[in-house]
């Protein structure tokens, strides 16, 4: 292997060439054709995004590039990296290719790093693994460390000489992702496969990682295969876009062209479904807060919620002096990043968390030191929609049983009455009444979330708490569910606390929006005012970080918001 230094393929010809790739999985229900016929090329210094919904085969394609498929998969076709066909090469050869020619950045940085080794060790591991395959002489531990420090510096970790000895838990989420990228870069591969590299990160951190990836391409000419479902990320970073649907490539075009004039119906549908900040706002045209005449259903005054700390460490304040009100018929949107306390507030209102200070009145009942027995009668006035529709249904019960449960507990109807009411509710969330006999796993994600909405509404509650109800769903499904939510809210007229990390989604539904940051409510106001004219620095940063699904507009925003992002 004398070709180690001047690598073939770089600078001439494509770095990655996939031809007629087919991947089949053996499952209990027979063979599943995950990838049917995919061909694509990645040129040096190019960022190619593979987009698609869950089940489109995009991650399987990415894993094939590194030969990471499980044993149950059979792949056919060719995946050529610098002339080596990954599908047919020997295990030893594959090990050489991995890391040196192609590296991977995983979705969840906190699980991609081993918690018991220092990050420096983990970066050096790749360097040392490839040392003796090259010129024959081993790399000393010291040299490997020097190169690990170098890699950390490349990805913008401050003070890399010290931090090379840190353990993963000493880094924040975004920094961990930087470390993962540093490990991928350690051997200077020509191609990086990034599988949803920003999905697990907050939107402000996402902006930083996207900028880092853009820098890598510009400075080192690294090609990137970006797997994502987020059209904003695609618009921000990609040169070329490959749209996949059910294992097939539907459309392939330069990013600008694809966003400007999508050719295939599926692509058009996909793009139309992406929520776009500022369009379709629920508070459009409003100038003052609506529904203020009605009864106040939720009133928080200086609400504080603490989680007890471990022995010796102080309690953790998840919610710190938050005040707000939700009136009858009003949709209150609560936005914030992970750890901002938004979910804690929602759970406290439903009596799933205890409040520790201030006052939280739900339907006139003081939640501080509440007793389950006295709060129980009020529970029928509160509906709750959970984040993950798959997990919020008992897998052993039919959809009908699950939806009817609140009814059975509170009003003890006859089976026929219950069945009738369940049928009505399912139809109002646009599911056939016959779905009552199905089991949760027999429904798709969107259908399950609608059933979840039906369960929350079966007792005609005055207040609905929706905790990230669409974040586990695909974009196109999310659009339909949000539309349905909006219609039903207008029809039933319940008040809602809508919790989400996605500004655009919150803006679509809420009249009044509150922005949470580290447990504090930093800003609240009419949806269109908060989004259009943010006052607080954090809100500004949040809005600036949100990539919009339009490459040109996104490039403009990137320039315009540079100052805000680095503040």
């Amino acid at each position: 292997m004398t070709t180690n230094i001047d690598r073939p393929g770089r600078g001439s010809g494509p770095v990655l060439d996939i031809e007629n790739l087919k991947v089949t999985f053996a499952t209990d229900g027979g063979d599943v054709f995950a990838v049917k016929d995919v061909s694509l090329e990645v040129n040096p210094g190019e960022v190619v995004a593979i987009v698609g919904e869950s089940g489109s085969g995009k991650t399987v394609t990415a894993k094939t590039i590194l030969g990471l498929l499980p044993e149950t998969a059979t792949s056919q076709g060719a995946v050529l990296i610098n002339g080596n066909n990954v599908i047919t090469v020997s295990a030893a050869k594959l090990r050489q290719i991995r890391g040196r020619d192609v590296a991977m950045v995983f979705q969840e940085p906190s699980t991609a790093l081993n918690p018991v080794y220092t990050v420096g060790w983990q970066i050096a591991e790749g360097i040392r693994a490839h040392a003796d395959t090259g010129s024959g002489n081993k790399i000393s531990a010291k040299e490997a460390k020097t190169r690990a420090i170098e890699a950390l510096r490349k990805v913008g970790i401050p003070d890399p000489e010290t931090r090379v000895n840190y353990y993963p838990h000493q880094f924040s989420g975004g920094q961990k992702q930087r470390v993962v990228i540093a490990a991928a870069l350690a051997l200077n591969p020509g191609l990086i496969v990034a599988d949803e590299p920003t999905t697990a990160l907050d939107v402000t951190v996402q902006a930083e990682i996207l900028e880092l990836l853009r820098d890598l391409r510009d400075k080192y000419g690294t090609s990137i295969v970006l797997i994502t479902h987020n059209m904003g990320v695609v618009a921000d970073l990609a040169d070329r876009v490959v749209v996949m649907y059910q294992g097939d490539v539907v459309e392939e075009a330069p990013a600008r062209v694809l966003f400007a004039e999508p050719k295939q119906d599926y692509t058009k549908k996909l793009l139309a479904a992406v929520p776009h900040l500022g369009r379709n706002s629920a508070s459009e045209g409003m100038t003052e807060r609506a529904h203020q005449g009605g009864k106040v259903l939720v009133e928080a005054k200086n609400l504080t919620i603490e989680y007890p700390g471990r022995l010796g460490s102080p309690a953790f304040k998840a919610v710190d002096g938050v005040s707000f009100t939700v009136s009858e018929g009003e949709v209150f949107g609560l936005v914030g990043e992970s750890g901002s306390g938004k979910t804690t507030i929602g759970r406290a209102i439903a009596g799933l968390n205890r409040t520790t200070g201030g006052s939280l009145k739900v339907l006139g009942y003081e939640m501080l030191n509440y007793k389950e027995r006295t709060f129980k009668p009020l529970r029928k006035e509160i509906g709750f929609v959970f984040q993950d529709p798959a997990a919020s249904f008992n897998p052993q019960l039919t959809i009908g049983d699950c939806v009817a449960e609140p009814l059975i507990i509170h009003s003890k109807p006859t089976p026929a009455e219950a069945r009738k009411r369940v049928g009505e509710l399912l139809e109002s969330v646009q599911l056939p009444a016959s779905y009552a006999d199905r089991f949760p796993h027999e429904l798709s994600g969107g259908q399950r979330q609608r059933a979840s909405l039906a369960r929350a509404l079966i007792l005609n509650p005055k207040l609905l708490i929706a905790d990230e109800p669409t974040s586990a769903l695909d974009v196109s499904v999310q659009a339909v569910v949000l539309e349905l939510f909006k219609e039903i809210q207008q029809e039933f007229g319940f008040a809602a606390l809508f919790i989400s990390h996605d500004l655009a989604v919150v803006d679509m539904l809420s009249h009044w929006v509150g922005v949470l940051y580290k447990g504090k409510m930093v800003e609240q106001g009419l949806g269109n005012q908060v989004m259009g004219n943010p006052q607080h620095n954090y809100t500004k940063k949040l809005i600036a970080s949100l990539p919009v699904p339009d490459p040109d507009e996104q490039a403009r925003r990137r320039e315009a918001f540079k100052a805000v992002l680095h503040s």
Partner: protein
Amino acid sequence: MNATTVSGRKQPLIYRLPVISHFRTSVGLQRGMLVTGLVLSALFLLTAVFAPLIAPYGYAQLSDAAGTFPAQQPPSPAHIWGTTVSGYDVFSRVIWGAQTAAVVIIVAVAMSIFLGVALGLISGYFGGWLDRMLVVIADAIYAFPSLLLAIVMSIVISHGQSSFWGGIVACSISISVVFVPQYFRVIRAETIRLKAEPYVESAKVVGASSIRIMGRHIFKNATRTLPLIFTLNASEAILTLAGLGFLGFGIEPSSAAEWGYDLNKAIADASSGIWWTGIYPGTAIVLTVLGLTLVGESMNDLNDPRLRGRKKAGSKKAPAGPVPTAGAQAATEAESSSS
């Protein structure tokens, strides 16, 4: 995946039963293991049920119309597996021993499963001081060697020796003392895991009572692993019973046949070249335990999608061998010629 979720609404009950569903999903070596285990276990159960028909003599019979049985006789047409030092027919004792073992398994597991599951649910769901106390007790029981505990229990309950049912109950209770903590722990761990599941929280938000949540939402989902522990515990129960019998704390030979007791009496025979009194009861224990363990282990593997073997994808089209690589080869050639 699509086939099961879209077409079949719900499979018939018979296909969803533990062992049968496992059999249907198994392939290759795993199926072989499961089948071997099932055949051995079925053989054991059938022998137990039809013992009165199979065994030529009673378990405590010492003579028939032809007179008293000779002692320590090698296998012969009259006594196909020979006789013991006391003059019992080995074949009949082994067959009747299966019945004793089966009854003890059923009684012991039934006693421990109900108590263990109920305690596990309550302890896991409510937590607090009750949970801590029960866990400490379970840990304390774990700290004792199980056989020692069984011996103590058998002395307490029946003063060492007793009649058929007295002996069975004594053995079963001593075994269940060891097993209750096992069921308790498994169910408690599952309950604690399920307690945080959104569907349990959703039931809480709706206002369901604790009893309803435990019975309707947690119990059914927590019992998935029970068939597995059941089979593994059944084999352990046989070993404990045999151990008790071997040490002389089992059931009197005149009350029931018991493999461990027979093994004990065969110790002296081994050195004088009398192999048949020890080999047969010993083999019976080995085969029964092996059968039950194989069933349990293969159920364990089949329950876990990652351990479960599957037919290779696209195996129906396997004869079309070189087709898939043709494109790849052409591509490699093109690539190598260009570089």
